[in-house]
């Protein structure tokens, strides 16, 4: 309890200030913990079926502004931007094709954006009702995830099933789903540390000016 370390602090006003700031720092009021994601052990992966066989790929660059607390879902938030040019499937031909106008076309649509609209509990885990923008199409999705926090290390494992054609991914000859399936399973695996809190109850995300 933050009050204990404030016991020796004299004058009731200063003691109160100590208790309040201690409570804010410790998130005792359920303030969402903001995340500093470790990119080395975090990944956004996807799997799809091509010519009858499942293959996997990933996005190597993404940034996330996430503040989440299981005890304060209303104040939790998440916004993830993915650099779609970083799509990688361990196959040069396929990677190049995914950069074309038929697929992600990062020259025109450099980012995919995930914005959580609300969080709810679902069994042992959570659901984020979110909006996902791929290319110029924004659709509601339900992102199901498990969250854990231990010794300041936060882990999130989540998944969402998407249909690529709904987002206009795969145009021209690629609209045929016989050889490249419509279903894409996205898997998110994040390890983060709680970002040190300032006294501000609602820390702002790190902004990079461009």
């Amino acid at each position, binding site marked *: 309890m933050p009050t204990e370390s404030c016991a020796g602090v004299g004058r009731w006003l200063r003691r109160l200030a100590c208790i309040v700031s201690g409570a804010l720092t410790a998130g005792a009021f359920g303030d969402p913990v903001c995340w500093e994601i470790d990119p080395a052990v975090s990944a956004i992966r996807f799997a799809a079926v091509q010519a*009858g*066989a499942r293959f*996997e790929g990933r996005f190597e660059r993404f940034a996330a502004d996430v503040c989440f607390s299981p005890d304060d879902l209303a104040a939790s938030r998440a916004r993830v931007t993915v650099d779609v040019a970083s799509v990688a499937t361990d196959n*040069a031909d396929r990677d190049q094709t995914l950069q074309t106008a038929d697929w992600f076309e990062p020259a025109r649509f450099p980012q995919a954006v995930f914005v959580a609209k609300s969080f709810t509990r679902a069994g042992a885990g959570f659901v984020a009702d979110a909006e996902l923008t791929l290319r110029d199409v924004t659709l509601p999705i339900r992102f199901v995830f498990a969250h854990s926090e231990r010794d300041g290390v936060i882990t999130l494992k989540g998944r969402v099933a998407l249909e690529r054609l709904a987002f206009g991914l795969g145009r021209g000859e690629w609209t045929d789903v016989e050889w490249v399936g419509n279903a894409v399973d996205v898997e998110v695996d994040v390890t983060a540390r709680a970002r040190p809190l300032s006294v501000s109850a609602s820390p702002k995300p790190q902004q990079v000016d461009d």
Partner: protein
Amino acid sequence: MALASAAPALVRYGGVAQTLHWLIAGLIVVQFVLANLAEAAQDAGSLLGALTWFARHKSVGMTILMLACIRLAWRLAHPAPPLPAAMPAWERVAARISHVLLYALLFAMPISGWLMSSSANFPVSWFGLFTWPDLVAADAGRKELFETVHEGQSKGLFALAVLHVAAALKHHIHDRDDVFVRMLPFGRQRGGRGAH
């Protein structure tokens, strides 16, 4: 009868061995055609075309691998009919070597193709019914290596197939022996060079 001992009765390959031989031979021709169609599509810039032809090529390739397993097991259990007594020793050695190489390629070619697909992160499906497990992890450099091996093997197989057909025709037309006929379900016994 003295005549019968001089010209032993024609012994053909069995029905199973013949079926496997001609089935695999036909599938190898199909493989060359499919590989060329895939590469032509790739050169024309149609990745979907290449994807579809290569998918069929891989399914047929894995079919050949499975048939090769059956065929090798069958061959080990059922010896080939004897070669003509008049066949020179060097021809026997050459036939032995070329057949061992042909059998080896029936396994090596599908396996190098499978390795190539695995390292290209293009897992092999069998006609969309199931997916074969990846043999190695995806790696662009390794894919280049297996591609070189696979293409080298295809040239070797082509050369051996030409030699194999030429030898069969040489036995049939020039030597006029039973070597070719033993792999056919029909055709009369021939005199052979020993009969002249």
